[in-house]
């Protein structure tokens, strides 16, 4: 049952987008996000939608999978829509039911906001869909480096993220094992009231935490035994290097965003 949980949403493909430097992808995502917030007409959204569509096919991703990523935020989108719909006065009065009134401006802003949220999520999900978690942490470490002078522990943060990612599958497996062992002792994780269900998790969580701490201890010891020391002068296995197509892609993104804002 725990096996169905997938970590991250990275889909491996051999494509131009996948090969782009992760740092460029993170920066580009940030820039386009800012652009999206500055768009004030529907035509801008149209442009972004076409752009996202092009990127998806360039990255050889299945449209369905990408769109499925929107599922979790549908509720938020609908909620936003309703809020704007009823509470934005202005324009023509469209209709009125009891104390609820809907104005033209409300409808327009509601739609506007929903489209903006959906595009925002869709676009940012492209980053995690085309970049492996390891590349991402490497890139984040690199991008955070300038802030090290003001005390941001860039390397340590990246190391923590890498280790956490590495151990998710291990802990999943462990949880599955402990769950089975407790079930063999008659534990019931499925039925009963919410309170009982929460209580029944104790026999699972305590052993899981203990083993997580034990693993952390072992790992720390193993790293120390091999003289691990982060920070200065530490080289890495995969060096990040900008190549020509990274600069071209970055240039295109800037041009695109500027057009978006001017529109």
């Amino acid at each position, binding site marked *: 049952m725990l096996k169905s949980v997938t970590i991250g949403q990275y889909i491996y493909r051999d494509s131009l987008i996948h090969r782009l430097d992760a740092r460029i992808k993170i920066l580009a995502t940030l820039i386009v996000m800012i652009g999206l917030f500055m768009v004030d007409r529907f035509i801008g959204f149209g442009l972004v939608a076409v752009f996202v569509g092009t990127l998806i096919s360039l990255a050889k991703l299945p449209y369905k999978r990408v769109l499925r990523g929107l599922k979790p935020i549908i509720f938020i989108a609908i909620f936003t829509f309703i809020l704007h719909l009823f509470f934005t006065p202005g324009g023509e009065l469209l209709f009125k039911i009891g104390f609820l009134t809907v104005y033209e401006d409300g409808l327009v802003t509601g739609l506007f906001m929903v489209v903006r949220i959906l595009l925002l999520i869709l676009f940012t999900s492209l980053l995690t869909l085309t970049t492996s978690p390891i590349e991402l942490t490497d890139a984040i470490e690199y991008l955070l480096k300038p802030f090290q002078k003001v005390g941001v522990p860039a390397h340590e943060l990246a190391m923590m993220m890498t280790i956490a990612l590495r151990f998710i599958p291990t802990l999943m497996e462990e949880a599955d*094992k*402990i769950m089975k*062992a407790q079930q*063999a*002792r*008659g*534990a019931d994780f499925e039925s009963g009231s919410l309170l009982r269900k929460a209580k029944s998790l104790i026999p699972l969580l305590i*052993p899981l935490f*203990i083993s997580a701490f034990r693993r952390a201890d072992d790992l720390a010891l193993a790293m120390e035994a091999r003289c691990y020391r982060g920070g200065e002068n530490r080289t890495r296995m995969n060096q990040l290097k900008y190549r020509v197509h990274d600069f071209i892609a970055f240039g295109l993104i800037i041009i695109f965003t500027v057009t978006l804002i001017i529109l």
Partner: protein
Amino acid sequence: MLIKLENVSHLYEDQSTVAALKDINLTVNQNEFIGLVGHTGSGKSTLIQTLNGLIRPTRGKIFIENEEITSKGFDLKTIRRKIGLVFQYPEHQLFEETVEKDIAFGPRNLGLSANQIIDRVHWAMDMVQMDYDEFRQRSPFQLSGGQKRKVAIAGVLAMRPQVLILDEPSAGLDPMGRNQLLQLLIRLNKEYQMTIILVSHRMEEVAELADRLLVMNEGYLVLDDSPREVFQNVNLLEEIGLGIPQVTRLLWEIKKRGYNIRTDLLTLKEVKEEIISFTRGRELC
């Protein structure tokens, strides 16, 4: 018969490294002591998990005391009280504040009365040779590895299952701990008529204890016979990466060099006697 498997197959959706089961037919009778051996990934663990309903096989039927547990809507909890399963490294599943509470977890889930639970805990601790008064209030996390293992095994024993399945229970124990554990299994089998299924990597261990041996390879049940007969298949066993007991190996080597010696002996004692009687009255070297 107690347990019966009919054409049981199991496939994992993700086709992972965990082994599948392929068309297993098997019956287990009351009070048998069965050894289950196989290479890592041969399907042993999957097989024992299907036996108490933790894994529902994709095909085939499993009967326990003539009840089909693979049928839809069958309450698997009733199986858990009949079949006890001790996983590999069972000490990793301890979670309660005291040894007593942890061992009582199983019986409590069975819905027994407070008195019955105390009796069961007391009995289970006696069986694993832990002093009830000394250990019951201790935290399981402050015990040594071997003691933790005992508590975990007692936790399953306290459910008084008819069948006890153990997955590599002696892994990582010192020789004394291992010996104690094996003695316990013999006692449960002889005195309490428990059916035991012992999964092990150590051929000596199963050769000595089990009266029936199951050998698995790549999801198939390839051999099912008495240890004596099973270990006659030296070539097959070595092909699938399993050995034979060292003393039996010795007899085979002697035979290979042209001497007419018995090879169907498994324990040190038997082999010693065979070699002594073989060499008697013979000029050697």
